[in-house]
């Protein structure tokens, strides 16, 4: 049986659709990532699944429980860590932990095992007020509090947003251990590079799931030849690239520019050489172009554009 199963779930606030009808399943013990920018609908989907919002249409089951009808039992079995820091800032680390253990009828002692790694890091700050912790420590404490009752399914809304790189890595390592302990994890993040930490990811934008894939298979969704172009004056280069007839998409990407050629199946090396030649013809010298593997961001951009165009064609 799936740990989370979603069927046609949809939600809008007034006339603004926040989540278009969505269906997917998450297997027990899977780490499922929701990846998308702010406002994509990640939080709405999570809140629907932890029974904080009522769906307009469709249904969802978490650990076999209906999110509307069985919400009371569901709330015992899931752990939820909201995107905003939601602990009591005026309570100490220990008091927060004790409080969340008590309201779930659990005790810190009996569930220490699950959160031991995290708790060892927090222990030196036991008496410090939660509000005075660093961002990373706050998130670790919040995770501890969400785990203290041994939930079967854990929902984490952007746990790594706003914390330092080291804490981010530590947090993901912790999530890996939870997976090993058999807990199903639904994690949302705006950071594309965190996709590789998940078993499967759903790319989400504008309330719509664009694709659900294993991170390793995402690159295969990118069928057009992709080149990284570097050097030269950036703005002029962008303009020149966009004016080329073979351009499918042109995006600045870090220090380089990602250029997608619309000729499917052509040899990327040959296309790179042709591109450099074409740019030299426009007076742009000393440039380099290399064929590259598509990353998750490339896939995301391409899917988002495709979906938007499909939507417009549909409506138009």
């Amino acid at each position: 049986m799936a740990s989370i199963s979603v069927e046609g779930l949809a939600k809008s606030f007034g006339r603004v659709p926040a989540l278009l009808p969505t269906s997917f399943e998450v297997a027990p013990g899977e780490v499922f990532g929701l990846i998308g920018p702010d406002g994509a609908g990640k939080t709405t989907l999570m809140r629907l699944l932890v029974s904080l919002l009522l769906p307009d249409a469709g249904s969802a089951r978490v650990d076999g429980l209906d999110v509307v009808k069985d919400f009371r039992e569901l709330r015992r079995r899931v752990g939820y860590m909201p995107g905003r820091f939601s602990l009591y800032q005026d309570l100490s680390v220990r008091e927060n932990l004790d409080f969340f253990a008590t309201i779930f009828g659990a005790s810190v002692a009996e569930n220490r095992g699950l959160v031991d790694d995290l708790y060892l890091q927090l222990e030196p700050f036991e008496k410090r007020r939660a509000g005075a912790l660093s961002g990373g420590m706050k998130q670790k404490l919040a995770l501890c509090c969400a785990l203290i009752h041994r939930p079967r399914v854990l929902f984490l809304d952007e746990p790594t947003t706003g914390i330092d790189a080291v804490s981010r890595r530590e947090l993901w390592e912790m999530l890996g251990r939870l997976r090993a302990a058999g807990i199903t994890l639904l994690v949302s993040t705006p950071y594309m590079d965190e996709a590789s930490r998940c078993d499967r990811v759903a790319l989400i934008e504008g309330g719509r799931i664009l694709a659900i894939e294993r991170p390793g298979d995402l690159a295969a969704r990118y069928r057009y030849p992709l080149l990284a172009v570097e050097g030269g004056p950036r703005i002029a280069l962008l303009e020149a690239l966009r004016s080329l007839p073979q351009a499918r998409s042109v995006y600045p990407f870090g220090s380089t520019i990602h250029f997608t050629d619309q000729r499917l199946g052509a040899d990327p090396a040959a296309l790179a050489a042709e591109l450099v030649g074409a740019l030299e013809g426009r007076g742009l010298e000393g440039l380099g172009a290399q064929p590259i593997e598509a990353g998750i961001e490339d896939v995301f951009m391409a899917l988002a554009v495709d979906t938007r165009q499909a939507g417009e064609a549909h409506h138009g």
Partner: protein
Amino acid sequence: MRTFFGFVRKEFFHLGRDRRTLVVLFGIPLMQMLLFGFALRNEVKDTPVAVVDLSGDPLTRRLASALEASESFRLAATVRNLDEGKKLLAESKAKVLVVFAEDFSEHFGRDGRAEVEILTDGSDPNSARTRVAYANGVVQQELAAVARESGKGAGAPHIEAATRMRFNPSLESTYLFVPGVMALVLTLVSALMTSVTITREKELGTMEVLLVSPLRPFQIIVGKVVPYLGLSFLNVLIILGLSRFAFGVPIVGNVFLLIAESVLYIVCALSLGVLVSTRAETQQAATTGSLSGLMFPTMLLSGFIFPLESMPRVLYWLSHIVPARWFLVIVRGIMLKGVGIAELWPQTLILAAMTTFFLLASVRNFHIRLE
């Protein structure tokens, strides 16, 4: 049950760490008691009085010193003509002018009748009326004494004022304000504080986590209410203690009944606060809602400051839904008249009914989700 106590314990942690709230909780009752007790009194105390003594004999001098001796007045000056007296009044050097006519003693000696003219500064009509009444009282009393001493008992001034205020013989305003302050403080502390503490959880996002837990709405509500019930109870004791020992207000009736009724009113105010918080999304909205929706009616429509009977009909009817109105009747009844539950059961029943209604409405209105 353990869950519930864990929740209550957390509330006490919050309270203990929030200095500002503690100051509001205990500072406001103290401040209001002292303010109403010392500063905002209605009765006359040490009012400067000038005597215009056109008669100038032992009798009028005796009356003047009677005024001086009373706690209400101090003798600012004794003058020999009316214009001088009026000047004192205009310059506010005297608030009351007591004029004894030239033939005052003669008249009194002859037929036991005396004409005293009392003038006062009418720019403050409320206290002017009180001052005149007090001055008149002092003079009448003294004249009666004189009449008795001279054996003219039968001829004693028949104009002697026979009015006596029942339940508050000296018309002490302290007696009147204690019940009012109790209602006000309990409304403020109970209703305002609870409404703020629940909306705070919404604002900080912790409500989101509380909702995704086995806690039930009534556990959250009651858990929030219990600490404030304790604190408000402490406030009742402080107010009653202050009024009894600092201001000497007697409690004529049963103290335990008074305390029990106060607890009922506290629960009523607390449930009102909870109701406000189920509607308000931010602490600011909760504060505004409690202040305008609860504080002002408690002050203005409860009979604390303005007499209910002289209100326009609409406001008078409106006052019936103000819990403080019923509480005031109860407190005044027990403290000043010494009546018991036999007389006060209708008001008690109304308060209990209101409380039940507010609690049910709060539990119904409590969102078990974010929308």
